[in-house]
C-alpha cells in the first residue's frame, strides 16, 4: 500500500514537472516569436530621436503619430492598399469561380479526357513558380498586360492549388446529393450553384482567405510586372519606401504596421479558415 502511494505521488510530480516544462518552452517560444512584432509596433510610434538612439525603447517615452500621418498623406500608401486589394480580391474571386467550375466539371461531370486534364494539373505542381517567371514575363508582355492588374492577377489565377483542393472536396461529396437533385429536375448549373457550392462553403471560405492572403503578400511577380509606382502593391511599395534614398526607421515601422493591419484583422476573424486551408494542403495532398 505504501508502495502504491509513493508511486502515485512521484508520478504526479513527474507529470506536473514535465507539464510545467512544456508550458515554459511553448510560451517562451511564443514570446520570442512575438518580440519582433511588439518592438515594431512600439517603434512605429516613437519620434525620430528615440529611433536613432542605439538603446531600444520598448515603451515609447513619447508617442507620435507623425509616421502614420506621413504615410497616409504624403506617400502612395493608400493607392498601394487599393491596388493590393483589387489584385488580391480580384484574383481570389476569379480563382473561386473558375477553380470551382473546373473542379465541378472534373468530379461531377463525366467526359472523355478528364483524367488526363487532372493529371496535367497535378503534374504542374512540380513546376516551381519562380522557374516560370522569365518565359511568363514574355507571355504577359506579348499580351500587353505589363503594368496592369490583369498582368498580376491572371498568372496568380493559373495556380493549380485551388483546383486541387476543391477537386478533393468535390470528389468526396456523396453522389446522392447530385442524384437527388437530378430527380428533382436540377440543371447542371443548378446542381453546381445550388448544391455543390453551398456544400463546399467552408472550404471555399478557407480557399478564399488563403488565396487572398497569399496574393496580398505576393512579391516577386508584382515586382517584375508592375513598373508604375502608382500601380504598386503594398509589398513592393513597402520595399521601395525602404530602399528610397531617405532613411526613416519610424516610417518603416509604421508602414509595416499599416501594411499588415488589414491582414491581421482578417487573421483575427478568420484564423480558423486560413489555418484549415493550410491543414487541408498538408494532410490531404499526400494522403
Amino acid at each position, binding site marked *: 500500500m505504501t508502495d502504491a502511494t509513493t508511486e502515485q505521488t512521484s508520478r504526479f510530480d513527474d507529470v506536473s514537472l514535465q507539464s510545467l516544462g512544456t508550458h515554459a518552452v511553448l510560451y517562451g517560444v511564443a514570446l520570442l516569436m512575438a518580440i519582433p512584432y511588439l518592438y515594431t509596433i512600439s517603434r512605429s510610434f516613437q519620434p525620430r530621436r528615440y*529611433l536613432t538612439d*542605439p538603446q531600444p525603447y520598448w515603451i515609447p517615452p513619447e508617442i507620435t503619430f507623425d509616421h502614420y500621418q506621413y504615410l497616409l498623406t504624403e506617400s502612395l500608401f493608400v493607392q498601394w492598399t487599393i491596388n493590393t486589394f483589387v489584385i488580391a480580391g480580384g484574383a481570389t474571386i476569379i480563382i473561386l469561380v*473558375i477553380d470551382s467550375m473546373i473542379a465541378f*466539371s472534373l468530379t461531377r461531370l463525366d467526359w472523355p479526357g*478528364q483524367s488526363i486534364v487532372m493529371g496535367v494539373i497535378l503534374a504542374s505542381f512540380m513546376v516551381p513558380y519562380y522557374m*516560370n517567371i522569365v518565359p511568363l514575363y514574355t507571355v504577359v508582355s506579348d499580351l500587353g498586360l505589363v503594368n496592369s492588374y490583369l498582368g498580376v492577377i491572371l498568372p496568380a489565377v*493559373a495556380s493549380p492549388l485551388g483546383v486541387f483542393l476543391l477537386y478533393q472536396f468535390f470528389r468526396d461529396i456523396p453522389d446522392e446529393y447530385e442524384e437527388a437533385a437530378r430527380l428533382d429536375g436540377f440543371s447542371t448549373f443548378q446542381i453546381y450553384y445550388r448544391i455543390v457550392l453551398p456544400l463546399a462553403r467552408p472550404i471555399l471560405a478557407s480557399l478564399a482567405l488563403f488565396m487572398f*492572403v497569399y496574393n496580398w503578400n505576393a512579391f516577386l511577380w508584382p515586382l517584375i510586372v508592375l513598373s508604375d509606382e502608382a500601380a504598386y502593391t503594398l*509589398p513592393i511599395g513597402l520595399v521601395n519606401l525602404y530602399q528610397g534614398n531617405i532613411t526613416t*526607421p519610424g516610417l518603416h515601422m509604421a508602414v509595416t504596421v499599416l501594411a499588415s493591419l488589414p491582414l491581421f484583422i482578417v487573421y483575427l476573424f478568420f484564423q480558423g479558415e486560413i489555418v484549415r486551408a493550410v491543414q487541408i494542403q498538408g494532410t490531404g495532398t499526400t494522403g
Partner: protein
Amino acid sequence: MGLRNRFTTGENERAQQTVFGVRKETVEGIAWSLPYLAVFSVFLIWPALKGFYMSLHNWDPFVPSESEFIGLENYIELFNDPVFWDAMKGTIYFVALSVPLLVLLGLGLALGVNKNVKGKTVLRAIYFSPYILTVAVVTLIWSEVYSEGYGLINYYLGFVMSDPPGWLTSTNLAMPALAFMTVWWLVGFNFVIFLAARQGVPERLYEAARLDGASTWRAFKDVTLPQMRNSILFVVIIQFILQFQVFAQPFVLTSGGPRGSTDTLVYYLYRSAFSQHQYGYGAAIGYVLVMILVVIALINFKVIGTND
C-alpha cells in the same frame, strides 16, 4: 437532338441528351473546364514549355523570332559560371539551414501544443501569425532586429561582448540570419499542418500502445511518427521546394551580399533575366532549378515514403 439507340451498351453514364451528336455532358464538362484551362495553359503550361525553348536560345527580347539557336550553350555556360555556383552553394546552404529547423521546430511545437497545455488557441495564433505577413514586412521588421549599429540584438549583445557582429554584414552570419528569419516567418505553416496530423492520430492507438507497455518515446517512434509520415513527407518536400526558391530575403535585405554570401539561384535568375537581360540564360537557370527539385522530391519519397 438525335434519337439514341436505346440498346446501347458498355457505357457508364446517365440517361443523356445529346447536342449535335455529342453527349451533352461532354459538352458541358468541357465548357465548365474551359475558363480555368485557358488561364492555366496560357499562364502556366505555355510558359513552362516556352522556358525550355528560350533556354536553348540566345534570346533577343526585341525580336524574339530572330533569337539565335545555341543548343545547350546556356547550360554549358551556366556550369562554368562561378556566380552560378556561388548562388547554388548559397541556396543549398540556406536550405540546409532553414528546412531542418522549419520541420523540426514545427514538429516540436505541434507535439507540445497537442499535449494538455493551457491556451492552445493563443499559442496557435501566435505561432502561425508571422506566416500571414508579406516577406517585405518580414524583412523590414528584421532589419531593425539585425541592424549592426542600431539593432535590437546587438544592443543587448553589447552588454556581454564588446564588438557584436554584423548579422547581415558578416559573410559567415548573413545567411544563417536570413534562414533564422525565414524560420520565424514560416514555421507556423508547418506547425499547423503537424498539429492537424497529430490530432488526426487516433487516441486509441496510444491506448493500445500503453497497454502494450510502450514508453512515451516508443509510442512516439512507433505510433506518432509512422502515422504522421505523409504529413512529414509533404512538409519536407514543400519546404524544399519553397526554400530552394528563396528570393526576397536576400533581394531586400542583403542584395546577395556581403561578398555574394547570400546569393541564391532565384535571385541570380532574376538578375540574369531582368537586370542583365539574358532571358535565355535566366530560363536555363529555371530549368536547372526544376531538375534539382524533381530529384529532391524523388529522394524524399524514397527516404521518407518507404511504402505506399
